[in-house]
């Protein structure tokens, strides 16, 4: 039986690929990644695939001219350690770029950006 263990493990692994993620990436966001929204949101929220380290997780939102349009209060939600949120200044119509840089609690840093549009 013990000799069959490895083939069994391999077969099981083959049969049920299971997606699990060990670096934090955005799962979804509000406003959604790449979306067009109206009216202008007062807050941006990104839910990540893992728990975040608050001390090392940041984001900023900039307009097309590169000026910062968030209120600089980006923080990880106290209840949900996978949620990073920031308040936004009143946004006129236009496209905004969100840049995030986070560290998951397993110490791995990740970063990226996306845009959303206010109509």
């Amino acid at each position: 039986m013990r000799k069959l263990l490895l083939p069994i493990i391999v077969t099981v692994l083959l049969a049920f690929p299971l997606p699990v993620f060990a670096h934090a990436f955005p799962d979804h966001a509000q406003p959604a990644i790449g979306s067009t929204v109206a009216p202008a949101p007062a807050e941006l929220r990104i839910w990540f695939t893992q728990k975040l380290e608050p001390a090392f997780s940041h984001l900023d939102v900039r307009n097309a001219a590169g000026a910062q349009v968030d209120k600089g209060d980006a923080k990880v939600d106290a209840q949900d350690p996978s949620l990073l949120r920031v308040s936004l200044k009143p946004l006129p119509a236009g496209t905004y770029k969100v840049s995030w840089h986070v560290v998951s609690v397993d110490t791995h840093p990740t970063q990226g950006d996306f845009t959303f549009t206010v109509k």
Partner: protein
Amino acid sequence: MDVPLVAARAVHFAGAISLTGVFGFAALIGGRTSPRLRARFARLGWISAAMALLVVPPWLLFVAQNMSADTLAATIASGTARTVLIDTQFGHVVVLRVVLLLALLPCIAWIGKRRSVDGIAATLAAVSLAAVAWQGHAGADFGWAGAIHLTADVTHVIAAGLWLGALLPLALLLRDPSDIADRYVVARRFSSLGVICVAALLASGAVNTWYLVGSLPALLGTPYGQTLLAKLALVAALLMLAAINRWHLVPQLAAMRDDRAARRLARHAAIEAVLGLGVIAIVAALGTMVPAAHEQPWWPLPYRLSLAAVAAPSLRLQAMVTGILALLGLALLISGIWWRRLWAVVAGAALFLGLGWRPIELLAVAATPTSYAVSPEPFAVPSIADGSALYQQHCVSCHGPDGEGDGPLAAKLPVMPPNLASPQMASRRPGDLFWSLTAGGSDGVMPSFAALDPVQRWDLLDFLQAQREALAATSTLIAGVTVAPAPRAPDFALPVPQGDAGTLQALRAQSTVLLVFATLPQSQARLDQLQSWRAALGKAGVALVTIEDAPGIRAVYALYERRPQVPPQPPAAHVEFLIDRAGYIRARWRPGDTPDWTQLPALQREIAATTQTTTTTFTPVIPTGHVHEG
């Protein structure tokens, strides 16, 4: 690879594992220990503790550097390590673990004198070691998955500590010229402990592999998977030595009371300890790498096995039966060699060689390096819209508007472009199609589109997939609910979030969706009507999404407006789709279609039909988009 970080981790893990093993050995295996042996154990204990503790400050510094993505000098200057220590899970766990290790230091001087003291020290060391799990990949997961992963991690490190860490004390004891009978008892006890530990290591290792690798392509085709294979090779060598010890040397020691057997056993234990150090070094590297389940695998073989490659059920059955029999033959062969049974060797070899080729012959299909790659983009409007634009720009001249191979340039080509909408295309893996786009066709006619960004190539494939599904549903997607074929509904961000659902995907997971594309003023009467039905629709479990002014979304959903024998029309002024909770478009209605959705009972019937057949007929569309390029 971050060499300083990996080195610091390796030194720390080796020290912590050794401490657990030394005290575990003293507490669980024991044996009569001479003062000289006790002194040696104590020296081993001090060295291990020094390794585990002294490397913590640099380790913390390297982690801080890694987290802040700064230079080492800047990390030191800004005091980031202090922030890591005070404000992060990693820091808190480090503090706890160091306190536990400091608490056991006095026990090192007492080692081998009192079982109870050894037991306390072993517990402190094991808890400190187990807490490592909260510093790694498992500590960042959620819910049940996180709990199972953590349990496996804890089991894995404690078993590794008790087994690998006890090898050096075992070697020291076996070389000590004390009573040979006592040495046999110790070797025997260690062997039993080893079997338990190895079983725990294999089981928990399998769970961890499942979580972090998850598939054979990921194991063979990613840096993480290949590093893990290197670890498994070392582990296999370790297990072979352990097996020789258990089934050969320990019985010899028992039978002959032979000092030479004891010395050989000691030498094997020392070699195993060195191999164990190699395993620890690899583990130290693995913890800093992106887990394989998270990366695009690069398939290294020219072939892959695919059950889907065999269409006929009888051949599928044949492939499975011969495959299982061949595996049983292999098991029989190995156990025949092990137990020295000629009949089992012959029968096993005959089964394995006689049948083993058959499933491979049946199931092997040509593979490409990206066979198992999946789109990093979710199946959603932005990706499909980008893909559509790219298709018009690069592909339509040969492949034609519907991918049927009837573009204006097609006639001049030496070979006909394949029909991209055909079932043969649909059966190919997205990763293989991605490779065709990347490398070009083997016939030299289809050019390479490697100049396009990988994400753009995936966008193109998402568009082709959407178009293929739409074409396949041309005659089934009508105002009456279809069971199959039904196309998947491309996701998009809702212009107005509904409750906590900001996307179609989140909303349709909660309820059936009636998606309405409206143009004012033509649609006003219908919108008013739907508004007045809101309560009735809500009761039927339907969420209403109205899209008035989103040309991007409208253009993609126009793919699903085809009718048989009618050339593609511009998007209608008003159209409605019923989308089920699994994520499929099940019905489409335009004013004038029958059944007439302007009659509430008719619409309710279609909604009920959608709800009833969803769970029985459709597997839910799993959201993709968590694999990351590069």
